[in-house]
């Protein structure tokens, strides 16, 4: 009897809800029954509310079972799990699931499918076709390909990736670096983590293409310490790439060198800011640098450095494999290609949805998310992390597009959305935004370091005031403070903290004890 392969996610979110225990129970129970079974730990498909979701390889393709607990294992085996047998937890073919069926997966094409520890599996699923094509091109043509794709930074700032690449390519230096920002600290975002755990080879390939394109022989990944599973996945994948000749002194015999190092952070949110990240990589306090000079001119150890986010770099192999035009054909306005959206917080079906730009938040939250987990009405959605605005019903039909969000005073950011039901306490969330900024400020600039602490105090005074005049006076003060932080801070931490604060105030004035006409901003 040949062995049956069962895929169980090794993704951190799946593990957090019991995937390891399910895998152990399955191995033990199969052993006791004398069943030939091999468990492969994959990443997650991104249907996170269904985790632990396991898949069985059958002659008719993979069959998935969702929300499996270890106690379900004997019953599943009784029901014929290994041949895709009927069971209450059976989902069927994962690709046919409505959540996955209409997604267009470019970056997450392999996550949940391949064994992230296996270079062979990566190659069997289209891996390194992008690099092979890239190696046949001149650096300028490679950069032009990225420019033509319309790819923009997926870490939140949405800066055109091709322009960064061109700047680093044009910088004259004996040593240049490619740095991957894997310091994904924003609540509501987990696409970087999922990619690194589910398809780390794609990040390595993307960095290698970037290195060859801009003339950098060294790549550094700065990974946050909260992601130990991603660390192990990357270490294994880097070893595999070195053994396979995809990293080293001559990448695939091209004569071009590319080496990769992995560095771990130590719990500092501000290190997600690119210049603080570079300081941290140099072993120092993660203090933000003034720009200019841009990192592309003087970055890591003062050398020209390309700093890109995980999903940005992991988008590159597919762009080279399928061509920039195919990627640029997707999207909306100046936001081209796909964005892996992340649904989080109080949502019934939380997970990763990779679709072209342009769908509405309403479609995302209702059609994909199924509304709130609590079944109560959606009150607010924070888009783009702790520095992003709170959106309400009125904003839900905006197309997901960088410019459309910016025009509404909001941030699409990395595409993470945190849903709150009608019990959300908006003054408390506004206060939290200021308190978070105070806790995480690097301390270099005054508006952020001092302003955030004053912000907490002013919000406390607004909420605690008995007289309307006191509240109104402090609201004026809060607005002035936010104005100073927005325009006077050195980086996005202090500069964008006013977004959640003011959006909460403007959209829910009554909760701050203010009549709506009294707050109609300056």
């Amino acid at each position: 009897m040949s062995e049956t392969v069962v895929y169980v996610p090794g993704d951190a979110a799946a593990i957090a809800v019991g995937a390891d225990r399910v895998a152990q129970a399955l191995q033990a129970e199969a052993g006791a029954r004398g069943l030939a079974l091999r468990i492969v730990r994959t990443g997650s498909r991104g249907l996170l509310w269904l985790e632990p979701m396991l898949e069985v390889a059958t002659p008719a393709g993979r069959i998935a079972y969702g929300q499996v607990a270890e106690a379900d294992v004997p019953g599943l085996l009784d029901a014929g799990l290994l041949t895709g047998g009927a069971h209450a937890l059976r989902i069927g073919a994962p690709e046919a699931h409505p959540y996955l069926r209409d997604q267009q997966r470019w970056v997450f094409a392999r996550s949940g499918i391949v064994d992230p520890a296996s270079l062979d599996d990566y190659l069997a699923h289209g891996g390194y076709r992008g690099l092979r094509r890239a190696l046949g091109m001149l650096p300028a043509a490679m950069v032009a390909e990225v420019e033509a794709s319309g790819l923009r930074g997926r870490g939140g700032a949405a800066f055109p990736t091709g322009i960064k690449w061109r700047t680093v390519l044009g910088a004259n230096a004996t040593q240049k670096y490619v740095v991957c920002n894997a310091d994904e600290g924003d609540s509501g975002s987990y696409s970087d983590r999922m990619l690194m755990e589910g398809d780390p080879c794609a990040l390595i390939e993307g960095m290698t293409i970037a290195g060859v394109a801009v003339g950098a022989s060294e790549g550094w990944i700065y990974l946050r310490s909260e992601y130990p599973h991603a660390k192990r996945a990357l270490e294994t994948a880097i070893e595999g790439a070195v053994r396979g000749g995809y990293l080293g002194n001559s990448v695939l015999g091209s004569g071009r060198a590319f080496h990769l190092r992995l560095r771990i952070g130590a719990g500092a949110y501000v290190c997600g800011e690119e210049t603080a990240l570079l300081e941290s990589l140099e072993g120092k306090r993660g203090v933000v640098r003034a720009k200019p000079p841009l990192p592309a001119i003087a970055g890591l150890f003062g050398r020209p450095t390309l700093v890109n986010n995980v999903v940005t770099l992991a988008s590159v192999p597919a762009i080279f494999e399928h061509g920039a035009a195919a990627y640029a054909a997707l999207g909306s306005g100046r936001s081209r290609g796909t964005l892996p959206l992340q649904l989080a917080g109080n949502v019934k079906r939380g997970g990763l949805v990779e679709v072209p730009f342009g769908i509405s938040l309403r479609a995302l939250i209702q059609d994909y998310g199924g509304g709130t987990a609590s079944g109560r009405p959606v009150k607010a959605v924070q888009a783009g992390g702790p520095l992003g605005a709170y959106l309400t019903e009125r904003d839900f039909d905006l197309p997901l597009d960088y410019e459309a969000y910016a025009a509404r005073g909001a941030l699409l950011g990395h595409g993470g959305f945190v849903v709150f039901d009608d019990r959300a306490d908006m003054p408390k969330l506004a206060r939290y935004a200021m308190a978070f900024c105070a806790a995480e400020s690097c301390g270099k600039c005054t508006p952020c370091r001092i302003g955030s602490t004053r912000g907490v105090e002013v919000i406390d005074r607004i909420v605690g005031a008995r007289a309307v005049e006191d509240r109104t006076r402090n609201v004026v003060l809060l607005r002035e403070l936010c104005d100073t932080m927005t325009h006077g801070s050195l980086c996005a931490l202090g500069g964008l903290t006013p977004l959640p604060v003011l959006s909460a105030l403007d959209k829910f004035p009554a909760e701050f004890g203010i009549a709506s006409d009294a707050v109609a901003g300056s």
Partner: protein
Amino acid sequence: MTPQDASPADPRVLFADLIGEPGALLPVLLRIQARLGFVPPDYVPVVAEALNLSRADVQGVLSFYTDLRSEPPARHALRICRAEACQAMGSDALQVTPVPGRLEVEPVYCLGLCACAPAVVIDGALHGRVTPERLATFVADLPE
């Protein structure tokens, strides 16, 4: 490699292989902490000398990063995510009283488990969809 190994006679053996690394200070401090559970204050001058830095440089980095600590840890560590996605799923109700020397309770800002909120990590083990009742069980089940 277990945390809280005994301090070696010459602290340098813990990180000798990292001394030539570019930007070695943070990796060196993380290595010491991984081995000993914390960075003892008397290691600061040793690290400074080994890396040709000032003691202020070393102390500055040690005090900047939340993960780095100068005191021995308690036997167990519970970190409760206090960021927005977990707040939206009721993390405020997850409250545990620390027990000096036995259990430390710290906030953490995002474990990347935002679709399985609220989330906590206990002695390195991740838990999602945590309720106050389940959390109480986890804490009660911790070995002495």
